[in-house]
C-alpha cells in the first residue's frame, strides 16, 4: 500500500503534535494507545494501529519526563510504526523495528530543542526590555514550533525517504554525540538551580540551602517532605520576625517619646 500525499502530511502533523500536546494541553497524544487511534484513522487500518499502540503503551508504562528530563517518546514511535507497517510489506514487526529506535532518538532531539529554546526565551526577554511586547509573544510562540519539528522531521524522513533511511541516519550518529546529549540532559538542570540561587538571598540564608540538601542527601526525603519541613522553618522564622518587629517598634515608640 502507498500513502497518499494527504495521508503523509496528516501523519507528519500527527507526529509533530505528539510532543506539542505532551508538553502542553495533554489531550493525550503522549500516550501511545491514544495516538494510535488517530494514526489508525489516517491510514485506515485501525486493528493494526491499535495493536501497535497497545504494544508500545505497555512498553512505555512508568516512563515520564520529570524535572525537565528527556525520555523516549513512544507516541511518536507509534505514528512511525503505523506508517511503516501500512506501507512496507513487513507488517507490525517492520513498523516496530523502525518506530522504537525513532522513539529513542527523540531523547536527543528533545535536548536540542530545549537548548534552542534557551536562546528563544533569552531573545524574548530582550524584546520585553525593549518594550517590543508583541515581538516577545511571537518569539515565545516559536517554542511549540520547535517541539513540533523534533517529531515532524524524523517522521517526514520516514514517510518520504523510507524507514531504511531513518535507520541509516540513526546508525550514522556518532556515540559521543548521542551519549553526550544524554549526559548533557542530566547535567544541564544545574544551570537552573544555580540561577535560582543567584537571584535569591542565598548568602544570608545559606543554612536554608544546606538544610534542603541534607534532607534529600542524608534522609532521602521526598519534595513534599522537604516542603513540610520548610513550612515548619518558615513558621518559626515568621514568629521570630514578628517578635523582632514588635520589639523594635517598641524601641521606636520610646525613641519618639523622648523626642517630644
Amino acid at each position: 500500500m502507498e500513502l497518499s500525499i494527504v495521508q503523509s502530511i496528516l501523519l507528519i502533523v500527527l507526529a509533530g503534535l505528539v510532543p506539542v500536546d505532551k508538553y502542553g494541553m495533554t489531550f493525550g497524544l503522549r500516550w501511545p494507545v491514544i495516538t494510535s487511534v488517530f494514526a489508525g484513522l489516517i491510514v485506515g487500518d485501525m486493528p493494526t494501529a491499535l495493536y501497535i499502540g497497545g504494544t508500545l503503551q505497555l512498553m512505555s508504562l512508568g516512563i515520564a519526563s520529570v524535572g525537565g528530563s528527556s525520555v523516549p517518546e513512544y507516541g511518536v514511535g507509534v505514528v512511525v510504526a503505523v506508517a511503516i507497517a501500512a506501507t512496507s510489506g513487513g507488517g507490525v514487526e517492520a513498523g516496530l523495528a523502525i518506530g522504537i529506535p525513532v522513539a529513542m532518538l527523540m531523547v536527543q532531539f528533545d535536548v536540542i530543542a530545549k537548548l534552542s529554546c534557551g536562546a528563544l526565551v533569552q531573545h524574548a526577554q530582550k524584546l520585553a526590555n525593549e518594550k517590543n511586547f508583541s515581538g516577545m509573544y511571537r518569539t515565545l510562540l516559536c517554542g511549540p514550533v520547535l517541539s513540533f519539528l523534533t517529531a515532524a522531521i524524523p517522521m517526514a524522513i520516514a514517510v518520504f525517504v523510507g524507514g531504511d533511511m531513518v535507520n541509516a541516519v540513526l546508525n550514522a550518529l556518532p556515540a559521543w554525540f548521542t551519549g553526550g546529549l544524554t549526559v548533557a540532559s542530566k547535567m544541564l538542570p544545574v544551570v537552573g538551580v544555580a540561577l535560582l540561587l543567584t537571584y535569591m538571598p542565598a548568602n544570608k540564608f545559606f543554612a536554608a540551602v544546606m538544610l534542603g540538601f541534607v534532607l534529600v542527601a542524608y534522609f532521602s526525603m521526598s519534595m513534599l517532605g522537604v516542603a513540610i519541613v520548610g513550612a515548619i522553618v518558615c513558621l518559626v522564622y515568621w514568629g521570630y520576625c514578628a517578635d523582632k518587629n514588635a520589639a523594635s517598634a517598641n524601641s521606636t515608640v520610646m525613641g519618639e517619646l523622648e523626642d517630644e
Partner: protein
Amino acid sequence: MSKETVLTKADIRRCALRWMPMAVNTFSYQYQQAGTVVFALGPALRKIYTNDDEYVEALNNHFNYFNAHPWMANLVLGAALGIEDEGGIAAKEAVQGFKVALMGPMAGIGDSLIWVLYPTIMGSIAGSLALDGNITLTLIWLALNIAFMFVRVWMFQFGYESGTKLISVLGDKVAMLTETLSVLGLIVAGALIPSVVKITTPLTYTAGESVTEIQSILDQIFPFLLPVLATFVCYRLMKSNKVSISVLILIIVAISMVCAAFGILS
C-alpha cells in the same frame, strides 16, 4: 499595600487558556517554564501595570526560573497572579518567593500522581484491551483528559482567589512574607541539588580481580559531591558575571560530550 484588583474572571480564564497549551513547550535549561509563564500572564500583567516600566519589571520577574508540573502549576500561577493583582509591583519579591517555594512540592505531587500513577492505571488496561482490538477504555481515557482540562481552568481561578485573599489579609507584612518565602525557596533549592542534578561517574579502578568504583569513593568523601561541585562552580560563574548563561550552557554541553566520549560521566 493592597489596592483595587483589576482582573476579571475572564482575564483569569484567558491566562489559564494561554498557559495550558504552551506550558512546557518553551522549556529551556536556564528558564525552564518561565517563557510560558510570561506568555500566559502577559496580558493580565499588562492590565495590572498600565505603566510600561512597571510592566517590564514584572515581566522580568516572571522570566526567572520556574518549573512545576504543568497541571499543578495552574494553582501556583493563579495564586501568584492574585498576589500580584492585590499587591502590585511592591509584591514583586513576594510573587517570586511564592512561586519558587511552591514549585518543588507541586512538581513532586504532580509528577508522581499525574505523570506516573494515572497513565499506569489507564495505560495498562487500555493497552491490554487495545491488543485485542478493543478501543473502549482508550476513548474513555481521552474523555477523561478533556474533562480534566476544565478542572485545570478552575484550579487557576481558585488559585487566583486564594492569592488575593492571602495578600489582603497580610496587609503591611508583605516584606516579611517575602523574606520568609525566600527561606522556603532556598530550602527547596538546596533540595533540588541532589534530586535533579544527576551527575555520576561510571569510572572504575581495576586492580587484579578487585574493581573499585570511583563513584563510591566520591560518595564516601561527600554525598552527591559532583552535583554540589557543579552547582557551586555554576553559581560562582554566574555571580561573577564573567560568563553569560548561554556560553555556560554551551560549555556544559561540550563537557558532556567530551566526558561521554571518554566514559568519564554517565
